[in-house]
């Protein structure tokens, strides 16, 4: 805890120092959706920016979660009180693109002389946030992707020193682990980002028609007709056979907690938790991360990005935009932005030069950060195809909730896997049609 306290103190000192000559500075608001330690990292970055120059001053306000940040931004925009910059999670992209409230990032960069090399972003990241024609409307900020966390000691018990590459191999390993007396070889929860979206991307399976929704608001989900159903069947069988377990807050321990205290030997989760596990693991937990398993190793594709981007909103004064431009230059800088974020959190660098810089400085050889380059290997495992670009569906969060409902339904035995997943797809499509009708006449950029 101590470093955080020190950080907080230095934060407030910086804030005091900057308050002294705050009157002649141009102020603007930045709303973010990170909480806890991650929220502190953002606030410190704001304080560092304020201390780095004397012309501008950013006021950072945590909104208590991504979801709250989106709700509050909507409410504020409707009241004409919106912030200049807001951090928005990846699945808020559709709402923001259709909102008419956005000052597109590429246009903003051009208007304010921001020197941003859009082609330097990893294609997996740039493509996710870009419009269907490849224009960047937001600035990628904190990014992550999914990886496979595995407990090396558990695998040593079955005589293996490497992690499984495919789901079949994982299944065989889990059977062997059960023989060897390991109670929980693999754990999962109901998160659609890991179980559906990342799974579909790395295996190049469609989630929805029209290039997973990038092609327009008329897309329909199709995940009930892909090997995703078999994958869910596999989860169900594993639970029934005692190979795997569901870990959620409701069962008592989240996935990360169950892995960090050694209860469960493996999981698929965001690389963002790499630092969390380092900080909270039991002593002597011998673990590593690797690429998430696929169906067929010869058909491995890139995983997709998670996290959030910074959006500039319409309707602010030219001075505020000038100040915002300075801030955006600061937080997208290789040292002040990327390195700062990567060192203080579990997130990954978002540009190739930023990654090279870190790698060459020996970052990934430090014990605390070793293994985190796997995320980059995962994001760049193949060229980005229309199926591995990302997901762009209206009311995405409702679709994720449908996946959760489906998994809870088949795991509790109320319906079989195929029925539950098909119902989730049908309900998702109803939601999509409703969304399409709400935006009748509007076109997805």
């Amino acid at each position, binding site marked *: 805890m101590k470093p955080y306290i020190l950080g907080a103190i230095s934060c407030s000192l910086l804030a005091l120092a900057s308050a002294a000559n705050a009157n002649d500075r141009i102020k603007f608001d930045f709303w973010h959706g990170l909480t806890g330690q991650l929220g502190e990292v953002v606030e410190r970055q704001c304080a560092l920016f304020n201390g780095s120059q004397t012309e501008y001053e950013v006021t950072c306000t945590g909104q208590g979660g991504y979801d709250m940040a989106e709700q509050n931004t909507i409410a504020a925009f409707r009241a004409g009180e919106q912030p200049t910059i807001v951090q928005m999670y990846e699945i808020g992209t559709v709402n923001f693109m259709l909102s008419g409230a956005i000052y597109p990032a590429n246009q903003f960069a051009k208007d304010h002389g921001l020197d941003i090399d859009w082609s330097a972003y990893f294609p997996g990241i740039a493509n996710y946030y870009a419009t269907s024609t490849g224009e960047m409307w937001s600035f990628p900020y904190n990014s992550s992707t999914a990886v496979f966390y595995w407990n090396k000691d558990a695998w040593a018990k079955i005589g293996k020193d490497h992690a499984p590459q495919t789901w079949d191999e994982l299944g065989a390993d889990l059977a062997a682990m059960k023989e060897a007396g390991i109670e929980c070889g693999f754990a999962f929860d109901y998160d659609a980002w890991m179980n559906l979206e990342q799974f579909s991307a790395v295996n190049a399976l469609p989630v929805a028609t029209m290039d997973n929704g990038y092609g327009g608001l008329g897309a329909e989900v199709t995940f009930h007709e892909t090997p995703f159903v078999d994958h869910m069947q596999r989860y169900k069988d594993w639970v029934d056979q005692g190979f795997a377990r569901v870990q959620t807050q409701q069962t008592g321990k989240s996935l990360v907690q169950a892995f960090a205290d050694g209860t469960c030997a493996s999981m698929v989760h965001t690389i963002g938790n790499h630092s969390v596990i380092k900080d909270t693991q039991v002593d002597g937990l011998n673990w590593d991360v690797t690429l998430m398993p696929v169906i067929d190793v010869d058909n491995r594709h890139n995983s997709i990005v998670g996290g959030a981007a910074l959006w500039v909103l319409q309707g602010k004064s030219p001075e505020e935009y000038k100040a915002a431009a300075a801030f955006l230059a600061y937080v997208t800088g290789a040292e002040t932005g990327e390195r700062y974020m990567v060192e203080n959190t579990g997130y990954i660098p978002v540009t190739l030069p930023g990654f090279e810089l870190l790698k060459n400085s020996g970052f990934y050889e430090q014990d605390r950060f070793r293994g985190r380059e796997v995320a980059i290997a995962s994001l760049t495992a193949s060229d980005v195809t229309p199926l591995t670009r990302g997901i762009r569906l209206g009311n995405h969060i*409702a679709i994720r909730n449908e996946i959760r409902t489906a998994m809870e339904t088949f795991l509790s035995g109320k319906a079989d896997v195929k029925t539950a997943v098909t119902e989730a797809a049908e309900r998702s499509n109803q939601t999509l049609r409703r969304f399409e009708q709400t935006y009748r006449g509007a076109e997805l950029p």
Partner: protein
Amino acid sequence: MNKRATFSNSWLAAALLLPQLLLVFIFFYWPSGEALWWSFTLERPFGGGNEWVGFYNYLSVLQDSRYWGSVRVSVIFAIAASALSILLALMLAVFVDRRMRGHQILKTGFFLPYALAAPAVGLAFRFIFAPDAGLIAGINRVFPGLWNPALDGNDALTLIILAQAWSLVGYNFIFFLAGLQSIPRALLEAGAMDGAGPLRRVWDLQLPLLAPTLFFLLVINITDSFVNSFGIVDIVTSGGPARATELMVYKVYTDGFQGKDSSLAATQSVILMVLIMALTFVQFRFIERKVHYN
């Protein structure tokens, strides 16, 4: 002699009423009006488009089996939680009223749960009743799989009913205790002299005299269970498993605030509002007739 205080100056009356009326207008009629308008349109999250769709939203909601599922769960939740908390509170109040040892401390202790915010109650119940790691985990070690609110919808519903009932007990308790203490001792003593035991006195004397309190608490508890259960559901179950604890008010939240579908949420809010008004009307019209105020 006229016992009522009346204002001869009606302008003064209006001026005195104005702040209150303004508050009611701003915080009730205005938002309700907005919700009503949205329920007949398709409202975009950021505004900008607002298409009149007539009863489309109402049809979508009322034809959805999942919506009726949430109505069913809400009704079970409201009745069970209200009954449980009223019964428990009544029992505790009768005990304390009999001035058992330590009743002064108990009085404070019984009221304390009401002072806790719903999310705090939810968090405590989630920890205590977590099937793998909670205090209840011992039961699962003896009877594996007996208790699992993470997968069994009935267990999850039971859990939030317990949490809601527990958090309302304190409030009910104070009202019952006040009611019991206002009953003239002479009545009870007369009953005792006639040979009525404690239980008989509760049943034949105290309960009928408590009827107005009981009725008031019934209305408050049921309304509270319908509209104020969000904090507990959100923390304990998030509406799961498989929407088994998705109460009407929680569904409004998931559709409107998570899904940003303001129209769908507004429609459900209007239905919920009408339902609560109807329910309160029924309670006053039919149950209150059996209540004798003295």
